């Protein structure tokens, strides 16, 4: 007769194959392997007697099986397995992990049910974390995500209509609308409404803009730089999209999950903002490497975009003033920190800094 150990070991081999498939970008195969692993792990868990002496083995096996069901997107099964694990005598840590997994599963299921109710010209941003209550959120956490999305709406529309980054459309086509926040975690709807008396170009509509944004966010989350660069077409559009997505991403402290739902799909932005590099190795060109690395802290206090590249001022605690040159694609991102106390990383000489990245300081 097959033992718990044998079933579990077979399940774990498949689980690791699922991780490898996911790393290689083969999500479909990854889900199939996770489903197969889940079946074996569930069989193993079911063979362990329901008794206090069976812990922690019993609850670890159910948690492992539930996690595999979650990976294979079988949320109903994941729920059942979590409940079985909790129904025994799990030690504190495993109980806590089962409860966290339960929250994640419930969250995913809710998002998927919402897709059917969203208009094709709308997008919903769901924000979850310790600082978010049911239908209530700190202003700053909401503002940075709405500002980020409005900026992405504008630039995506411009890019799809083949406008060069930094230019403007002759006439504004859409007005972003905000729908009343819905209770849940914190869900805010945004809609792209065509302005009155405006004629959209042929074969162009808000749904195309929304789908394009969802694809981009998904690629940022999957760390798929190559496809994202191809999608964005230019460095400026690429930098802008990544920096604004980084602004909307969870920080892992106050906010631990941000999800975007459109009529067609849900994208969970699970990468923490610190894990989304704005300036990648590819962009740090040789010229910059030759210059001195500079790190400076202070308040961003003026902006000037008369030149092709934007300039911002930074004043330190000692009243020293620095000029920060910002690439076009990162302008909106850096402006979001106007009058805030930040640490700037860059390269340069004397008090002229070519911006690479920033951190907001408390």
């Amino acid at each position, binding site marked *: 007769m097959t*033992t*718990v*150990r*044998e079933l*579990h*070991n077979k*399940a*774990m*081999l498949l*689980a*690791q*194959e699922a*991780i*490898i498939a*996911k*790393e290689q970008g083969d999500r479909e195969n990854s889900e199939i392997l*996770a489903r197969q*692993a889940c079946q074996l*792990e569930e069989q193993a868990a079911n*063979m*362990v*007697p329901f008794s206090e*002496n*069976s*812990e*922690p*083995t019993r609850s*670890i*096996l159910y*948690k*492992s*099986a539930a*996690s*595999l069901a*979650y*990976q294979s997107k079988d949320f109903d099964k994941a729920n059942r397995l979590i409940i079985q694990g909790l129904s025994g005598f*799990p*030690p*504190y*840590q*495993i109980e806590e*992990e089962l409860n966290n997994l339960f929250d994640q599963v419930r969250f995913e299921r809710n998002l998927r049910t919402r897709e059917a109710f969203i208009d094709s010209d709308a997008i919903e941003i769901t924000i979850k974390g310790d600082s978010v209550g049911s239908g209530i959120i700190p202003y700053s956490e909401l503002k940075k995500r709405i500002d980020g999305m409005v900026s992405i709406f504008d630039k995506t529309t411009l890019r799809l209509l083949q406008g060069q980054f930094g230019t403007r459309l002759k006439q504004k086509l859409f007005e972003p609308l905000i729908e009343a926040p819905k209770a849940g975690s914190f869900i805010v709807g945004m809609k792209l409404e065509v302005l009155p008396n405006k004629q959209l170009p042929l074969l162009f509509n808000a749904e195309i803009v929304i789908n394009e944004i969802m694809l981009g966010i998904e690629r940022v989350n999957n*760390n798929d*730089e190559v496809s994202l660069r191809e999608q964005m077409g230019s460095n400026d559009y690429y930098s802008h999209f990544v920096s604004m997505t980084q602004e909307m991403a969870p920080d892992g402290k106050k906010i631990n999950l941000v999800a975007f739902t459109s009529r067609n799909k849900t994208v969970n932005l699970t990468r*923490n903002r*610190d*894990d989304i*590099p704005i300036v*990648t*190795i590819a962009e740090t060109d040789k010229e910059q490497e030759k210059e001195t690395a500079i790190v400076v802290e202070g308040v961003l206090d003026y902006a000037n975009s008369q030149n092709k590249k934007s300039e911002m001022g930074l004043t330190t605690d000692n009243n020293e003033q620095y000029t920060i040159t910002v690439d076009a694609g990162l302008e909106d991102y850096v402006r979001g920190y106007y009058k805030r106390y930040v640490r700037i990383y860059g390269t340069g000489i004397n008090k002229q800094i070519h911006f690479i990245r920033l951190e907001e300081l408390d």
Partner: protein
Amino acid sequence: MAINNYLKIDIDTVGHGIPVLVEGVAAYYKESCIICLDHHSYSTGVLMMVSYGIEKEVQVFWTGEATDKMRKAYRDMKRTTDNAACAFALLIMRDHGNYGIEQASADGSTIDYYLSSTNDDDTLIFNYSARLEVSGILSETEHNTTKKRIQAKKKRLKKDGNLKDIIVVVCFNPLKTEVIEV
């Protein structure tokens, strides 16, 4: 000729003697190690300070080097650091610990490892185990040190119930590993 008595960690052997680790994941772990070591320009034979009850210097060996293709594939440095840390933890436990790596369980998109000195029970497979809690730091900073990481982990793993934890924090700059049992 000087003879050194350093203990050794051979990254190339990460797939050996750990039955719960499949070949593909072992290769992935090894490459993650190479990326993190290369990030700080270390060469094979570099010394790592390992604190596991007592402090000892351990010599780290590997073959192969980071290529541009690898750097591109492993660009997510946080994940790469965590995977490299996991490889070091498994190697240290296998070669220098009192436990064998007995079991694994799925946890989202990662694997949890469980250690055990003896476990012949084919049903209650986790009952005599300690969980391996691994964390990686690419470069230590004032706010992100191995000590602080261990404190944070200890705080999270409130001691309640019968699950024992072994915390391993691997730091790549300076190169050191701290192991504690809670």
